[in-house]
């Protein structure tokens, strides 16, 4: 278990102090996939870097499995870090080493015998699905493959915790999905606790069980993903829940266009500030053309429905399509034609 107790981190800025983390207390259970979300500058990276002490907190305690790790000596800390894997947005691989040599790197650091090392590297290459690419250099790999090397490297010393700082933010939606699948599998099969930092809500939605939302150095909301998504209480959380899918828009768009090459595809955005009358049903009745809802992630916010609906309309005139959009907009629904 990772226990963060009242963590504060203050950087000395040019003129004023920067309070990157302002008193965060969190418990992360063993085997969990824990998401930390928030906008850029919220203090997420700083917080996660405090977990493996790349950054020393100004005050507060970091306790991992009952051990206060901020009080360890430098050499004890190095041993502890070998049991905490970390992956990064920009992968941070060594370009001068091949895939196999990159994965072997943490084993060399831990002074593992060469024979054991080679065997372990082979296992890891299989685990992350990079068979045949052992001898390639990072510059010859795609982003997704690079992150797989990053993951294999992070798992080399059999860690119990894997820290992911925006690990999918530099990847396209499909690749993101495949990396998330891999992380999910690692969590299930190896029982590794995963801490996922991200500003992409759909990442949280896909794999996290618990979530903490950070804003301005504080955790403003925390709980199971289901609860937070269903009843977002804080303003920042609400905005996040709304953006689910926004990052994926391109993929959704091209997928839907392929499926429905005719008619119009619309993205209806509900901002949670409209009445809970059955707006959609009323509008559909008024225009009298076939409307199908192809995907939706509407949740009930405190003030009404929030989220978005993708719908497909067809077999009407251009005027009817326009009318449909107008009627919805009149009810406070934002409409985008994809």
């Amino acid at each position, binding site marked *: 278990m990772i226990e963060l107790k009242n963590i504060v981190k203050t950087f000395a800025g040019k003129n004023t102090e920067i309070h990157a983390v302002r008193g965060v207390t969190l418990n992360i259970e063993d085997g969990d996939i824990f998401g930390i979300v928030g906008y850029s500058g919220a203090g997420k990276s700083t917080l996660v870097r405090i977990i*493996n002490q790349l950054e020393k907190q100004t005050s507060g305690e970091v306790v991992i499995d009952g051990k206060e790790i901020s009080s360890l000596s430098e050499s004890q800390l*190095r041993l502890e870090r070998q049991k905490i894997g*970390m992956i990064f947005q920009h992968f*941070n691989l060594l370009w*001068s080493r091949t895939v196999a040599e990159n994965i072997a790197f943490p084993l060399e*650091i831990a002074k593992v015998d060469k024979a054991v090392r080679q065997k372990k590297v082979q296992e890891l290459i299989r685990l992350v699905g990079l068979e045949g690419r052992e001898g390639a250099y990072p510059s010859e790999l795609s982003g997704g493959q690079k992150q797989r090397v990053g993951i294999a490297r992070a798992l080399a010393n059999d860690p119990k915790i894997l820290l992911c700082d925006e690990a999918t933010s530099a990847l396209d939606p499909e690749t993101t999905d495949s990396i998330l699948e891999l992380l999910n599998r690692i969590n299930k099969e190896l029982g590794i606790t995963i801490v996922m930092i991200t500003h992409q809500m759909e990442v949280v939605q896909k794999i996290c069980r618990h979530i903490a939302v950070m804003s301005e150095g504080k955790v403003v909301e925390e709980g199971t993903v289901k609860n937070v998504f269903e009843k977002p209480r804080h303003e920042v959380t609400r905005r996040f829940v709304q953006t689910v899918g926004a990052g994926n828009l391109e993929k959704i768009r091209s997928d839907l266009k392929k499926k429905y090459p005719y008619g119009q595809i619309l993205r209806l955005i509900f901002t949670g500030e409209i009445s809970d009358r059955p707006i959609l049903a009323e509008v559909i009745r008024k225009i009298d053309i076939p409307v199908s809802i192809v995907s939706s992630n509407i949740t009930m916010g405190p003030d009404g429905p929030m989220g978005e609906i993708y719908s497909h309309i067809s077999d009407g005139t251009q005027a009817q399509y326009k009318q449909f959009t107008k009627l919805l907009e009149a009810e406070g629904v934002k409409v985008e034609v994809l």
Partner: protein
Amino acid sequence: MNEFLSAINFDQMLEAFAETLYMSFGSLILAVIIGMIIGILLYCTQTGGLYENKFINPIVDLIVNILRAVPFIILMILIIPITKFLVGTMLGATAAIPSLVFAAAPFYARLCVIAFTEVDKGTIEASKAMGASKLQIIFKVLLPESLPALISGVCVTGISLISYTAMAGAIGGGGLGNLAYMYGFIRRNNAVLYTATALIVLLVFIIQGIGDRIVKKIDKR
């Protein structure tokens, strides 16, 4: 043509060429070793470095800057006492080496710092996160990741050393520079002047060519 060739004493030319090679490569090896150590020291002691040290860093930095600022021809004169102490004489090819090293080591140290600075901070951070010690970071990350730049730095340093040896030669260090000066300039023997120049240019081209080739081969970025 025959006239041109007969104006050259080939044994003398060959000996001068060998002296130039000896001075350049002897001082290059020493300058690279010393320069790299100073470069690592400078890089690691800077603010935010692995061995941040607010006392050592500015002092070494100042010494390097002073040595780099003094023109070579003056540096040679200034360190004559050191040369005499180390070599016993201030004449001949070996006597040129201390001043060449004094000039080239700080130069290479600077190139090393530039090379290290180009290493992605993210990879150093990742290594720390994996539990690497500071020495492991220097030897397993910093040096291998900057190797192409370090090697092209060796070439650049080697090439400036060749031109320094020509200057050192003029003051009595021997080598092609001395030959060109003594025979070509003072005795107006153009054949010697041109041949010595051609040999120096050729040497520079060969070093650059070999260097480029090695860099291209090991650079996997």
